[in-house]
């Protein structure tokens, strides 16, 4: 993304727009293939590998990276970090778009997407972790929609409705944290049922805890990472508070992320110790596990700490991006890379280009929606009519 994308007045043929157009076109074509020819035509899924990157990336990574919404609103409204108030709206917006498109992406992966509501209508499969995930995601998407609603209501000038929505803030925040705790952790718990398929270094009875704790890390890092990107692209949309306080947010969130990463590292070690899997660390999978542990958990923990100590904002922002990458790797490890590790190479899964195409298409849609909204609604600045109002 670059500064020119928001000018728009001069020309729509900016490099970004051209790429975006091509990605959307490709997405539409693959969409047509997927829904007319079936999953088999667009994916490399097989009977051994029923889940690919549409679950591993679009669902698991998508939900983890959309954690910024609950993390930020909890920090501001529950833990009273009022000075980060300016960051709530962008974080809630990304959370909302993130979840919305997780649900959109699910329609590609489900064999019969039009039955998406069946679990709640025809068969309450309460013994399934997926049921819990589905219920919480559905409820949380509603919560995020309500949390986000003041922005469009201000934009449209519906003062009374907006007032009602704003009054719900506290309740929605608490709901949001409860629902996020539940579904972030149960995404990890999905894999509890398959101890014989997931590599022992990644399989652990603590998987739900790992997923929850790492979602906090993902949320914090995503808010910083995204802040960096939107500073580049939407600088002119930001108000005084946003511009002046975002450095302090980076320092605060960087510190928090470093602490949570340290805790995460510790419990991951406890996980290995509990299963007594030390001997596996020297195998190829073990080395890959160590890459994740040292390169994407210990290292960012250290870099965040150094960045905060030296007030090195560049370093913290780089670390945020690195941590986000680490989360992507972790979720793919569990769902795809270390899953079915025992099978011979010929039975393993590698994504079809169309699967990657849809994932890129979904990410592009999120960016385009984000751009559409922040260039119109009061997200990065306070609406003049409601300035300084206590929320």
């Amino acid at each position, binding site marked *: 993304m670059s500064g020119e994308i928001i000018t728009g007045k001069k020309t729509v043929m900016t490099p970004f727009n051209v790429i975006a157009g091509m990605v959307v076109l490709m997405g539409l074509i693959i969409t047509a293939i997927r829904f007319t020819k079936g999953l*088999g035509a667009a994916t490399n899924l097989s009977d051994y590998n029923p889940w690919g990157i549409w679950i591993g990336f679009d669902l698991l990574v998508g939900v983890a990276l959309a954690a910024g919404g609950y993390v930020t609103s909890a920090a501001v409204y529950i833990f009273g970090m009022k000075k980060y108030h300016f960051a709530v709206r962008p974080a809630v917006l990304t959370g909302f778009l993130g979840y919305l498109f997780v649900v959109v992406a699910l329609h590609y992966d489900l064999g019969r997407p039009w039955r998406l509501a069946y*679990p709640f209508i025809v*068969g*309450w499969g309460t013994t399934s*972790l997926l049921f819990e995930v589905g219920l919480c995601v559905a409820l949380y998407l509603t919560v995020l929609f309500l949390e986000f609603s003041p922005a469009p209501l201000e934009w449209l000038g519906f003062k009374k409705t907006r007032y009602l929505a704003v009054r719900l803030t506290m309740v929605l925040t608490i709901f949001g944290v409860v629902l996020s705790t539940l579904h972030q952790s149960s995404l990890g718990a999905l*894999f509890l049922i398959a101890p014989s398929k997931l590599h022992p270094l990644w399989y652990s009875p603590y998987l739900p805890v790992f997923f929850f704790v790492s979602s906090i890390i993902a949320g914090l890092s995503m808010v910083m990472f995204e802040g960096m990107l939107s500073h580049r692209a939407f600088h002119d949309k930001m108000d005084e508070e946003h511009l002046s306080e975002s450095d302090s947010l980076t320092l605060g969130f960087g510190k928090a992320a470093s602490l949570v990463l340290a805790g995460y590292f510790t419990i991951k070690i406890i996980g290995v110790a509990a299963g007594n899997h030390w001997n596996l660390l020297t195998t190829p999978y073990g080395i890959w596990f160590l890459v994740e542990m040292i390169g994407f958990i210990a290292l960012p923990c250290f870099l965040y700490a150094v960045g905060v100590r030296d007030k090195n904002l560049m370093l913290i922002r780089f670390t945020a991006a690195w941590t986000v990458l680490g989360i992507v790797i972790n979720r793919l490890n569990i769902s795809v890379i270390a899953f079915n590790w025992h099978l011979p190479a010929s039975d393993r899964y590698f994504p079809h280009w169309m699967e990657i195409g849809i994932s890129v298409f979904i990410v592009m849609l999120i960016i385009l929606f984000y751009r559409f909204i922040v260039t119109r609604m009061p997200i990065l600045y306070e609406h003049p009519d409601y300035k300084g109002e206590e929320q």
Partner: protein
Amino acid sequence: MGISRRKFLGWIGAAGISASIGKPAGASSISQFSGFPDSKGVLHDITRCVGCRSCEDSCNKINELPEPDTLFSDQTVLAKNRRTTTKAFTVVNQYISKNASEKPVFRKIQCNHCLEPACASACFVRAFTKTPNGPVTYDPDVCVGCRYCMIACPFDIPAYEYDEPLTPRVVKCTMCAPRIEAGEIPGCVSVCPTEALTFGKRKNLLSIARERIRNNPDRYIDHVYGEYEMGGTSWLYLSGVPFHEIGMREDLGIKSGPELTSGALSIVPMIVGLWPVLLTGIYGMTKRKEKNAFIEQEGAVAAAVERANHESIKKIAAAIEKERLGKKKAMEAAEKEKEKGIK
């Protein structure tokens, strides 16, 4: 983990998530469940199997499956490591022992009809049912196609119709449930020429298996595969070679699928119950801290104001004094001038 499903549902209900769940489904129960008492099963005596593929043939016809990839008379495919697919609910594989003098071993693969099926507990629309007769059946009319059942099945059994754009189904062996219902025996069992397959009550099959082991200790490994694996299965196996050598996993453990996830599920009501209380508490504390800070701040401001007042009064007094003195001096000077002038 000793939480019964009913209790769990009770909590959920109490926590206000739902009020409309509650039909007890034996198949996906997470309480201790050792199988329906008279449920049927099949004993597969691997030592008797000759790899004729008659069972594959009969299964194909009974279930009206598409034409097989190779004719059932073709024995060469046995050597390939095949699995169940949308076209084959069952396959027979051949395993050559490392010891060249030993004869090859054949093993039939199909759904094991677990006593507490992982696939059923994983399904979020309850498309699978463990019937009291034994078979684990599937209902395509409710299936959403999430394929979590396939992730969950430890035996890699369910296959999916990926090429079907509108009506893809999960497919697997049904244990010929309709035939059992009608008092017949499963198709594959009925055609087996060597009685490598025996159909009956699971209880009885277990005794038969134990008896065979007792009578021929040299012929069999002393283990009935499926008695306890993954909480027990309706399909049982006897073998002359270690099970892992013929592609059967020996590391599955005896915990059933539902047991593996019951812990995580039982935490749900805890989170729903405790989190809001804790969070509101924290919120209350932050509020109080803020208020205290505010009061302190107020106090500080008042003190500062007072101090400032004090100082300014002094200043004003000093200024007035100064002015007074100045005026006095000026008056004196003026008087002096006057006097001078008079003089």
